[in-house]
């Protein structure tokens, strides 16, 4: 709602600013990895692993966790959907790169089911410009609501990118 036309009404009704809990950035505006954000996400997963008395090395092969965190877009819910899905695909630990790839591809296919050409076009524009898609406010709202586009914040303000899973859609966007 904070990104919709209802934003001002929301502010008027409840008084005060809308506080946003931003996503943990996994990349920066310039497209490079945000190491700090990736580390934070990995740390959350490491803490969960610690409760099971296993070590991250026992659960993940190589850089599999970083890869999962990167395609989650910094949305913690996505991290766990991907992890859970990968775990269900393993006969034994660790989660291999191959399983991680297969899991990511499956999630990307799911995401692509509802992608229409106009969505793809808008998402490409957002990914390229890192700004909101202002041509069609209705469509933009839908993309945010369906987590196709994700909002981030840095010292210069809010910026946007597509959900990194979209880049993994077989056949491209």
């Amino acid at each position, binding site marked *: 709602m904070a990104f919709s036309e209802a934003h001002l009404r929301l502010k008027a009704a409840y008084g005060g600013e809308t506080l946003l809990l931003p996503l943990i950035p996994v990349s920066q505006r310039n497209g490079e990895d945000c190491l700090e954000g990736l580390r934070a996400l990995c740390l959350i997963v490491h803490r969960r692993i610690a409760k099971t008395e296993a070590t991250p090395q026992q659960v993940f092969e190589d850089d599999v966790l970083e890869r999962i965190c990167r395609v989650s877009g910094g949305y913690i*819910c996505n991290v766990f*959907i991907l992890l*859970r*899905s990968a*775990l*269900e*695909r393993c006969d034994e630990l660790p989660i291999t790169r191959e399983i991680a790839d297969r899991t990511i591809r*499956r*999630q990307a*296919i*799911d*995401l692509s*089911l*509802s992608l229409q050409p106009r969505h793809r076009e808008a998402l490409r524009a957002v990914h390229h410009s890192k700004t909101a898609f202002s041509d069609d406010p209705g469509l933009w709202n*839908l993309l945010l*609501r*369906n*987590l196709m586009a994700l909002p981030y914040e840095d010292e210069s303000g809010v910026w946007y990118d597509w959900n990194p899973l979209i880049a993994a859609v077989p056949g491209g966007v």
Partner: protein
Amino acid sequence: MAAVSAPVNLSPENQVEFATLARMLELASGFTLAFVRVNHPSLRDRLVEELLARFPQESILRLTLRPPLEDGTVVHGVVTQLLDAVGDGHPDAIFVFGLDAMFDPAARDSPALDILNLNRSYLAKRCCCPVVFLIAEFGMRELMSRAPDFWRIRSGTYHFVGDTEDARATLGRVKDGFDWNLGLREKHERAEILRHVLKEVESAAQPDSPVLAAVLYQLGHASEFEGTADGGRVHFERALALYRKIRDRGGEANCDRRLGDVALRQSRHADAKTLYREALTIYRQIGNRLAEANCLQRLGDVAFRQNRYADAEKLYQQALGWYREFGDLLGEATCLRNLGGVALGRDRYAEADDLYRKAQPVFRQFGDRLGEANCIQSLGEVALQQARLADAAELYQQALPIYSQIGERLGEANCVKKLGEVARLQSRCSDAEDLYRQALTIYRQIGDRVAEAACLAGLGDVAGMQSRYPEAVEFYEQALLIYRQIGYRLGEANCLGTLGDVVRAQGHYANAEIFYRQALPAFRQIGQRMGEANCLRGLGDVAGMQSRYAEAGEFYEQALLIYRRIGARLGEANSLQRLADMSFHQDRYGEALETYQQALPIYRQIGDRLGEANCMQRLGDVALQRGHFQQAGTAYEQALAIYRQVGARGGQANCVQRLGAVARNQVRYEDAADLYQQALPIYRQIGDRLGEAGCLLSMARLAVLQQNVPLAREAFDLAATMYSTIGLTAQAQQVRDEALAP
């Protein structure tokens, strides 16, 4: 739960997915939301069976959701149904079927998914076990975009791909009863399923040709329901190529016939004929006589659409005989309805009405809603032709919801267009314009060019009625172009006729006569008597405008005869009015009065307000000529009120100008000048040059009376120039003579 190895009757890919799903069930603790994407009921049932066998100790609740009512009302929401099914029990897992049926993939709203999206946390709290939704691909797609928050709390998705056997089984289910009578939602669902199956079959390492051909054929069939411009042509053509390759002659003939249907809908009549003939030959060879009868009937449709009524009748009669022989009542009813169409085309209204009324109960008896709607619509057509406008509107209103319910867009568009026509005839111009535009949009979407042109012509009619002549000509020219492209002679003739009307209204009489003389033989050739009569009337109009009153009277008499013979009351009233006009112009006022009085009640009876106003105005003219000024004033005021209501600006200008004449005759010169000044800009705005000339002449004459010589001279001059421009040289000379008179 304890998982064992994957079942063997699944493909290797599906085995991997099955193991993943089984592991989820094994590992899950508490509420876990999972989605199984499977397009084939046969595969889905196999999966469930396997899962039940793998977890024999577990209590797995299976629930098939009850869908909303046909109008979309959600009686039992998904969460309510789930919790009701669980009751006080504690299942280890719940398998939910039928989520796809809770919404219409083609509808904008899906209340059931909205409610589910809102109640997601409640569901998570109340269900302490895995909840697995088994849905088709489109269901998953719609769920993602329509219930995104519910989708977000999922823990996993599992995807199973069917094999050829599954595709065959699903195809069998989709084909069963896949016709117009199927609910709209169900039709959309089956089309979606077919698209998924096509994708699966095509992506197989070695696609199975018969199955692929059958899927393509059904998809083409589905396109017909979806009303796309392509009409399934691409699918049928692909299926045809496959059937030819595998030498399936029945399949080949069916594809030819369907492609013929597509061609007919797109008004490619010659193509349709060729395709039906090809199909007919094959059906004869393989001895499928019923299909042969269907083909004959469709060839009849082609003849009918080309206005070859005698050929159409012969073909329908031939098919009718066969249907009777086979005892195929529905085929018989369809033939009767088509014969009704022929009777209607030949202006034999009572016969048409009778045939439609014979066919309608048969369709109803068999629950053939499309057939029934078509009959009702055709009865509306008869009523419309007989100028029973209220009846026609009621019948169209009856048929419209049936078409909407079954998603037959062509029928829907036809009804909307016809309601537009009724509105036009009742002089509700803005309603008519709205309705025509609505219909036009649908016709363009479904690629029906004849109807598109007819709508454009209708919009031209409305523009003409509102005296927006240049716009009207533009609409008609667009329509004419389409008719010529597709070789639709009746449409072309109609267009030429109306173009004649419009350019005549603008005072271009020579051009109008050219148009009418082109249209007349075309109407005679195809035996369309109404059009013939309209042309004769138009030629009468042109002659009348050029002061050839006796000749005009003859044209009107000829037209009147035809209108009366075919029972076209509006044409009758119009011809009477024109005949009266001619008497009027020849100063036979008593005769004119009598004839106008014959026309007026007909206009009132059929609810043609514009016609009524025109008649009133003319009665005013007669009164004015006879020196009954007060009576004339009253008649003009009455006519003016109607013109204002229906927004006919030309009529308004005429009335205002004539009220000016009344004022002048009553020596209220100031009032008269004022009224002329009001009328003149309206004439100019609507481009009625004859009206403008007449108004200028009246102003000149008034100026003479007011002894305003410069104004009189200027107005005479302008009027004379205008008459010459229009080509009315005699009038122009008269005006010049009058100006020179002392």
